């Protein structure tokens, strides 16, 4: 318990924002985001109806516990603040929603809350994220994540962009490998982005995003 709290606190203190979580894209834009690991997946479909707001639904499947848990949560995301500079951009997003949690014969209301921050230039990237989902009679699901990355080359518009990212992810309620550290390779071309990563303990992750 003390170790979990210390690690959570350390991650929050080291938290620096930015980089492309983008739960809010552009007005009139749709986003499909899929974050996949062997024991958890998180799929989001979002519609940005205002430059600072999006509506969507978040589906999470967690197989870390012996019995699979599913969460379906409609949510609102808010671009709290964006700093647009000539050579950089920084963002703070918060989001929240109320939905349902399901496990076996058990169904309960669930709430989700989260905050994401990022900072990027054309060649550097930092981001942080904290996401928590709670439901009555369910163990809390939490994901804390920090990233730092660089672009080995700087791509132009309509070219393939590549990034090499170091990721630290902490899942305090995971029964094993709660701290997952490792590299992620990110590539994107126009409006399609994909990432492939693996932790030092062999936990893989594959993420996919598309905006239209």
């Amino acid at each position, binding site marked *: 318990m003390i170790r979990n709290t210390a690690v959570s606190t350390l991650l929050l203190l080291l938290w620096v924002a930015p980089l492309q979580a983008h739960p809010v894209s552009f007005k009139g834009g749709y986003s499909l985001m899929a974050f996949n690991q062997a024991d958890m997946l998180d799929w989001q479909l979002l519609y940005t109806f205002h430059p600072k707001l999006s509506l969507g639904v978040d589906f999470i499947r967690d197989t870390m516990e012996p019995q699979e848990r599913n969460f379906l949560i409609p949510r609102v995301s808010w671009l709290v603040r964006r700093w647009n*500079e000539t050579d950089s*951009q920084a963002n703070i997003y918060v989001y929240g929603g109320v939905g349902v949690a399901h496990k076996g014969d058990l169904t309960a209301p669930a709430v989700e809350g989260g905050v994401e921050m990022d900072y990027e230039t054309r060649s550097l990237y930092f981001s942080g994220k904290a996401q928590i989902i709670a439901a009555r009679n369910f163990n809390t699901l939490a994901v804390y994540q920090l990233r730092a990355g660089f672009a080995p080359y700087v791509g132009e518009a309509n070219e393939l*962009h590549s990034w090499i990212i170091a990721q630290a992810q902490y899942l305090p309620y995971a029964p094993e490998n709660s701290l997952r550290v490792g590299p992620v390779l990110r590539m994107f071309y126009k409006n399609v982005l994909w990432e492939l990563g693996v932790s030092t303990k062999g936990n893989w992750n594959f993420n996919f995003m598309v905006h239209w």
Partner: protein
Amino acid sequence: MKNRIVQIVMVCAFLAVTPVWAGQSVTVHVKGMVCDFCARGLTKSFNAFKDSAVLEDFKVDLSKHTVSLTVKDGAMMSDADITQVVEGSSLAVDKIER
């Protein structure tokens, strides 16, 4: 002399509020446009102006942080229109050059 000064001031004022006229090129300097993924909103919005026969073409230049627009003959695109597109993508206009 005084009349000449008044005439110059009036012409300058007219040019300052005149939107981009047909066939003109305009360069929009954008703040916050640091990645192609982030510029997708601009691309989608300016494509809509191409489809509606306002823009002949446009080009995003990430290294210069600009979007270059070419307005079609007989069409018009105001600074307000351009600003609305940029701000709709949660980016910011630094300046517009004609």
